[in-house]
């Protein structure tokens, strides 16, 4: 006896409580019941397998509530008396009385052939497996239908957002995620649909609303699934509060490090220039002012009707001693500078460039800029004062950043290359895409106190130039590069230095 060969529709009439009022005879027979046996029994409890009861109940509730958005046809199996399952496709409508009150439901079902049932069984296994995966996931996974109504949530949802799954079923997704984010996601999905990349999940950081009203930072990935022409959305939310917290902490400590570094580089840069010149200016100003005032005083004495020779002579001696005082200050500074011993160390220039770029990238102004490295591999080592050459390079990078301040971010690029030049010197160049250097400024650019920047002191390149010179290299501008500015410096390698010392012998 194969009832499945007969595509008779099953008819099912339920009262408002979901109890069976009528069930078609053929269906009754299929399930192995007498018609009278099922009467007044609860349909879902009696004839629906446990796995499908929640889903079925929800649909029935929707129908009995006479909601306008009735679910489409749904497929679920029914349970025979012997425990066999038969797969049907069901469609339900509410039954109304004369005064339009819902008094129950009427449902029709079409049996689905056995081979389809087999498929369905493997589908059910897959579904069970998937369910297990979903429930064990640490992310909250929430599915909605095309209208944004929640159709499925996993267990993790409760631990992240505080809602039990039954509390969310049938509610709109907007109770969890603000509408504008949903819209953004929907818009992005549509864009992706147009590019035919239908299953791409789009991930973004948003804040979801916890049941208790808190805002939980989550990483939301929305995936759109299309089955048989109808589509639904699945959102995966990963709780990133911890990550956010540690990110904030990291950011704070990074900022502190940066501030300390800023102060250091600032001091370093200003040390020679500002600190020293201010101190020097003050020190020298004292005797110079005294000399100036004494001299004017002498002038006044000479113009007086009575000449006080003693006072005049006395004052002239004081002028002399003030000039001596000024000379002493200058001698002291010279001695101080000569005493500064510099530590030279063997260095791989490419490593130095890398670490300097890292340093520069933490600079706010340089942050948005791309760096491109064109290194010659296996360059000979150079013996340099590491900090000084780093200072020179950092200074060139900063200048390059400043030069590109007005161009669009995506065009900002600094190219740093290292190579060995025909004379056997290491040549490092820093290229930007800025406005370049005016012909008229090229001569003066390495001079002290020359600056084209509004707030520039005109010290950076001058100091850099003297550092490179003291290392036995040269510094200059490549006149052939016209797409911005290219500064370069050269440094002698150990080989150059050896040749030099041989040559001099």
């Amino acid at each position, binding site marked *: 006896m194969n009832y499945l060969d007969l595509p008779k529709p099953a008819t099912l009439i339920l009262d408002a409580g979901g109890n069976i009022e009528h069930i078609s005879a053929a269906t009754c027979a299929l399930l192995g019941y007498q018609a009278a046996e099922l009467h007044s029994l609860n349909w879902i409890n009696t004839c629906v397998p446990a796995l499908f009861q929640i889903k079925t109940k929800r649909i029935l509730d929707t129908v009995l509530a006479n909601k306008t958005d009735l679910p489409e046809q749904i497929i679920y199996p029914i349970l025979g008396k012997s425990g066999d399952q038969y797969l049907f496709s069901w469609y339900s409508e509410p039954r109304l009385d004369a005064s339009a009150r819902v008094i129950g439901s009427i449902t029709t079902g079409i049996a689905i052939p056995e081979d389809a049932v087999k498929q369905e069984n493997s589908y059910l296994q897959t579904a069970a497996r998937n369910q297990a995966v979903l429930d064990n996931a640490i992310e909250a996974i929430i599915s909605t239908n095309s209208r944004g109504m929640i159709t499925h949530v996993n267990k993790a949802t409760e631990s992240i957002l505080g809602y039990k799954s039954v509390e969310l079923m049938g509610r709109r997704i907007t109770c969890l995620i603000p509408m504008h984010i949903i819209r953004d996601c929907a818009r992005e999905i549509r864009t992706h649909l147009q590019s035919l990349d239908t299953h791409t999940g789009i991930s973004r950081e948003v804040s979801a609303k916890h049941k208790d009203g808190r805002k939980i930072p989550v990483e939301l990935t929305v995936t759109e699934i299309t089955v048989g022409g109808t589509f639904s959305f699945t959102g995966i939310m990963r709780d990133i509060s911890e990550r956010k917290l540690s990110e904030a902490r990291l950011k704070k400590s990074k900022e502190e490090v940066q501030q300390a570094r800023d102060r250091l580089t600032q001091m370093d840069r200003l040390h020679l220039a500002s600190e020293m010149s201010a101190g020097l200016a003050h020190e020298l100003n004292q005797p110079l*002012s005294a000399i100036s005032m*004494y001299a004017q005083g002498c002038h006044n004495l000479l113009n007086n009707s009575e000449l006080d020779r003693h006072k005049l002579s006395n004052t002239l001696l004081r002028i002399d001693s003030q000039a001596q005082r000024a000379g002493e200050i200058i001698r002291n500074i010279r001695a101080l500078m000569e005493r500064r011993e510099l530590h030279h160390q063997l260095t791989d220039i490419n490593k130095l460039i890398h670490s300097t770029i890292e340093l520069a990238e933490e600079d706010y102004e340089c942050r948005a800029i791309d760096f491109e490295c064109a290194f010659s591999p296996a360059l000979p080592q150079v013996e340099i004062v590491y900090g000084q050459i780093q200072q020179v390079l950092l200074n060139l990078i900063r200048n390059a950043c400043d030069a590109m301040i007005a161009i669009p971010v995506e065009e900002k690029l600094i190219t740093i290359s290292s190579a060995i030049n025909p004379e056997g010197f290491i040549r490092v160049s820093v290229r930007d895409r800025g406005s370049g250097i005016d012909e008229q400024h090229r001569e003066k650019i390495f001079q002290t106190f020359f600056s084209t920047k509004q707030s520039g002191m005109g010290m950076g390149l001058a100091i850099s130039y003297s550092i490179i010179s003291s290392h036995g290299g040269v510094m200059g501008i490549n006149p052939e590069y016209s797409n911005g500015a290219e500064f370069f410096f050269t440094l002698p390698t150990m080989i150059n230095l050896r040749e030099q010392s041989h040559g001099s012998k």
Partner: protein
Amino acid sequence: MEANNTVYIVDDDPDVLDATCMLLESTGLQTRPFNSAKSFLKNIKHSARGCIILDVRMPNMSGLTLQTEIKRRKINLPVIFITGHGDVPMAVEAMKNGALEFFQKPFRDQEFIDCVNRALDINQDRIDNLNRAHSIQRRIATLTKREHQIMQHMLDGHITKVIADKLAISPRTVETHRARVMEKMQAKTLAQLIYMVIEA
């Protein structure tokens, strides 16, 4: 009076202090040097006349702090600043605090001398004004109650007839009082009288 006009100079650098004194003395001014804010505050008298020259950068108490202290003690002498390292905010603060001028070293000596003389003039004017105000107040004190009353009406611009009506006395009597007021106040015209009373 002139002998009391002194330039008080406060600078911690003894050479600069000496040179400043020498320069100002060479133009015939009287100076008094102090090597610290403390010794200046200890020795300055409330009745001092002249002006003050302060170095901005001094150990213990800076020129700016000393200026505030001078103001607090109501020592009403013009202050001129000298600094080795002029910076704008410092100068602004000093000027806001009532400094007359802010010189950055090295400066043009003649400009400096001119400024010191201007400061002395300002102080002299202030003293003269103060003296004049005192003498006017003394004159006002010699007025009788009735004369004082009449003067108030005069200052309000009332003519004799109106004053007579208001005080219920004869215009003749008012005229007599008016003459006495002008005489006692040593004012030749009504305008002079008004000016005096405003100044006092």
